[in-house]
């Protein structure tokens, strides 16, 4: 297992607002790390740092031994599910093709190699059935499948997922997280998986990075997702309940609407 991403004494903020500091994190190839924390704690900003879009306040971020930079093709990115609207002249396979060569200038020139590559990516996520279906008539889960294929198009070494399960129903949450898991095993990818809810990926997570109160904890889910650790991190009495293999976090001070959808499940 080689280290693909390394952050050392990293600190980040915007304007006068500090998000986190003193972050030391290593992501190895084949390792899936869940990034958790309240809204506004700097989870997505961490991904932006790795993408070279936001500079660190201090410390360093290196990807495969060199400082992170904008537009590194060896980093794949899966965004939040956002439904494509009517009026997007793309079918399933065209979205994947953008991952293959969408960054190049000019108009795409069809070729056998390009076609085969797209077909191979489509089949790797089981999306052949809607390769020719207009994007706007696909469901959120189907579109997320295609976005994973798109992210895998450039043979990445690191996959960044920014809330890819948001607003998907439970079966599709499972399906999409299975696809990410399958891809990292098959391609030996490091994965940073930003999510507000660890449960859909709990059985796949190697380590958790939990950010709160400008601080963080890193460790296995068993080490981090405990009443003691999270209470200390939040500086407030937080309760972690394990129930039927699920982790339920109650009493997080920042009452954002996404943080405990599990409460409803438990009732």
């Amino acid at each position, binding site marked *: 297992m080689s280290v693909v991403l390394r952050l050392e004494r990293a600190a980040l903020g915007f304007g006068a607002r500090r998000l986190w500091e003193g972050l030391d994190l290593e992501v190895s190839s084949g390792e899936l790390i869940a990034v958790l924390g309240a809204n506004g704690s700097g989870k997505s900003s961490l991904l932006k740092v790795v993408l070279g879009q936001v500079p660190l306040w201090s410390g360093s971020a290196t990807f495969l031994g060199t400082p992170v930079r904008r*537009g590194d093709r060896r980093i794949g990115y899966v965004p939040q599910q956002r439904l494509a609207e009517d*009026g997007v*002249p*793309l079918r399933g396979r065209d*979205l994947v093709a953008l991952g293959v*060569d969408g960054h190049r200038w*000019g108009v*795409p020139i069809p070729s056998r190699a390009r076609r085969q590559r797209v077909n191979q990516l489509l089949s790797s996520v089981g999306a052949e059935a809607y390769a020719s279906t207009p994007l706007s008539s696909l469901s959120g889960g189907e579109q997320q499948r295609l976005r994973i294929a*798109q992210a895998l198009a450039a043979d990445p070494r690191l996959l960044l997922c920014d809330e890819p399960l948001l607003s998907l129903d439970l079966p599709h949450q499972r399906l999409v997280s299975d696809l990410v898991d399958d891809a990292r095993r098959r391609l030996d990818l490091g994965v940073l998986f930003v999510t507000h809810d660890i449960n859909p990926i709990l059985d796949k997570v190697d380590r958790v990075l939990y950010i709160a109160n400008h601080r963080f904890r890193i460790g296995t889910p068993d080490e981090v997702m405990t009443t003691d650790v999270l209470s200390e991190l939040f500086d407030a009495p937080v309760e972690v309940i394990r129930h039927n293999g699920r982790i339920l976090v109650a009493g997080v001070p920042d009452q954002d609407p996404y943080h405990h959808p599990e409460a409803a499940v438990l009732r």
Partner: protein
Amino acid sequence: MIGLDSLGTVWSEIFDFSDYRQLLPLLKNSIIACVVLGIVGGLIGVFVMMRDMAFAVHGVSELSFAGAAAGLLFGAGVVTGALLGSLTAALLIGVLGARARDRNSVTAVLMPFGLGLGILCLGLYHGRAANKFGLLTGQIVAIDDPQVTSLIVISAVVAVGLVVIWRPLLFASTDADVAAARGVPVGVLSIVFMILLGLAVAVSVQIVGALLVLSLLVTPAAAALRVSSSPVWVPLLSTAFAVVASVGGILLAAGSSIPISPYITSISFAIYLSCRLLSVRRTSHRSPEPAHAT
């Protein structure tokens, strides 16, 4: 049959194709202008639709009208004025309105200002009245050689520019975050696109008029998107629709006493309507989506 008689009178008042054969050679410049305009409008329209900028196009065209009117008043020329007006508007909307919500309000603020400014300039202008009206509703005749040359040059810049940025612009217009992660210069592209849009509007305003620019820059692409989702077919169809509307418009207008714009807008609208009907049939005939195992 008084009804039919009067209809015939109206028809003969509007249309007179008797000298058509002699008329056509005189329209050479106008026909070239319409073909070129159709190509540019059809191509850029695809991105106008993708980026949800139809309203912004309308705003840019009003400012372009103001510029053209000022050009007429101060003697700088309609082309120069239209270019200055639309480029200013396009850049303002592009820079101030990065988000869709901001863009709509910026457009809505600029549009009446531009229209008012244009009407002021026209009010002060004491030249030919036909020039005034033409800026708002279009004109066909009197496209001279220098004018058609400038139109072709500007349109070529837009077409070549679009082809060069086509793929990354498609990526950025589909999913800006992912495109940015891939190293596509999303911000630069959107400014370049606004400049190209400004140029396209400026040339269209001179032919179809400021009020009707949307019929060439939006309607054909909107129609194409009703019947196809292919990134190859949509621009091709959109271009074909726009050329049919603009050239069809000039051929009809040549034999009639009415300006070109109602013909262009009517053909454009008829194409859109047909595509919509076709798409309704297409979707109702589509077999139910296969259930995907989860």
